[in-house]
């Protein structure tokens, strides 16, 4: 039986994380930025599960469970804010939201 080296899983997670980070960087649309954040979260989840599985520690999966819960809460609230933003400005371009500028 062939088994998969742990580093492969970790590599995949790393790539996903990087892509998620770049998405946050580059995109102007607020919703897409949130998607990128979700992507990063998932990559982290994958890492946790990988370690949990390979070192036979259940704690990693419990962590992922809670991360998902929190991610759900965060997505809900974040989207509510975006809806609010859209209502006020008719645009989802984050560059337009510059009220914090000194």
């Amino acid at each position, binding site marked *: *039986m062939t*088994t*998969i*080296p*742990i*580093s*492969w*899983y*970790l*590599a*995949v997670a*790393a*790539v*996903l*994380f*990087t*892509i*998620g*980070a*770049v*998405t946050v*960087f580059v*995109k*102007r*649309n607020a*919703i*897409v930025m*949130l*998607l990128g954040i*979700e*992507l990063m979260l*998932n990559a982290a989840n*994958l890492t946790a*599960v990988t370690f*949990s*599985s*390979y070192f*036979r*520690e*259940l704690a990693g*999966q*419990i962590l*992922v*469970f*809670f991360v*998902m*819960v*929190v*991610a*759900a*809460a*965060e*997505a*809900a*609230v974040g989207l*509510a*804010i975006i*809806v609010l933003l859209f209502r006020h400005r008719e645009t*989802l371009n984050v*560059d337009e939201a510059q009220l914090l500028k000194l």
Partner: protein
Amino acid sequence: MERALFVIFALTAIVAALNVLLRRHPLHSALALLVVLGALTGLYVLLGAYFLAMIQVVIYAGAILVLFLFVIMLLNIRAEEARLERRPFFRWLAVPFALLLGAEIFYLVRTFEENPVPSGTSVGVTEAIGRELFTTYLLPFEVTSILILIAILGAVVLARRG
């Protein structure tokens, strides 16, 4: 056999992730993320985390992402205009950033030797997770339920009209 599955799922995930990044319409990006989540589910199963795989499908893909889709369609978002990025600085910054990040992570990853696990005996059986959740991690469990409640309230208050 396993390796083949792994490669399929991994590649799907990566390609879909790239789509999230590169698509212009937010709807396409969201759907691409859906594909990523699905691929990840497969990977979880490969790793023996059955419970989490189900949770991923039901909650992450099935609720969170659907919420995203609802909002996108509700707000009737068009595709991003392909006008000039006013601050190309960030675009140009992304590449070195990605490279650096990747380099760091890969540096870390190299330290791990092969540590295979027989995929028969898996750790993530539902019963096991359930037992842990309700004994050792009972407090965080209850706290997160309150957290969700607060999130609901927050979302309702924020998105109310008037």
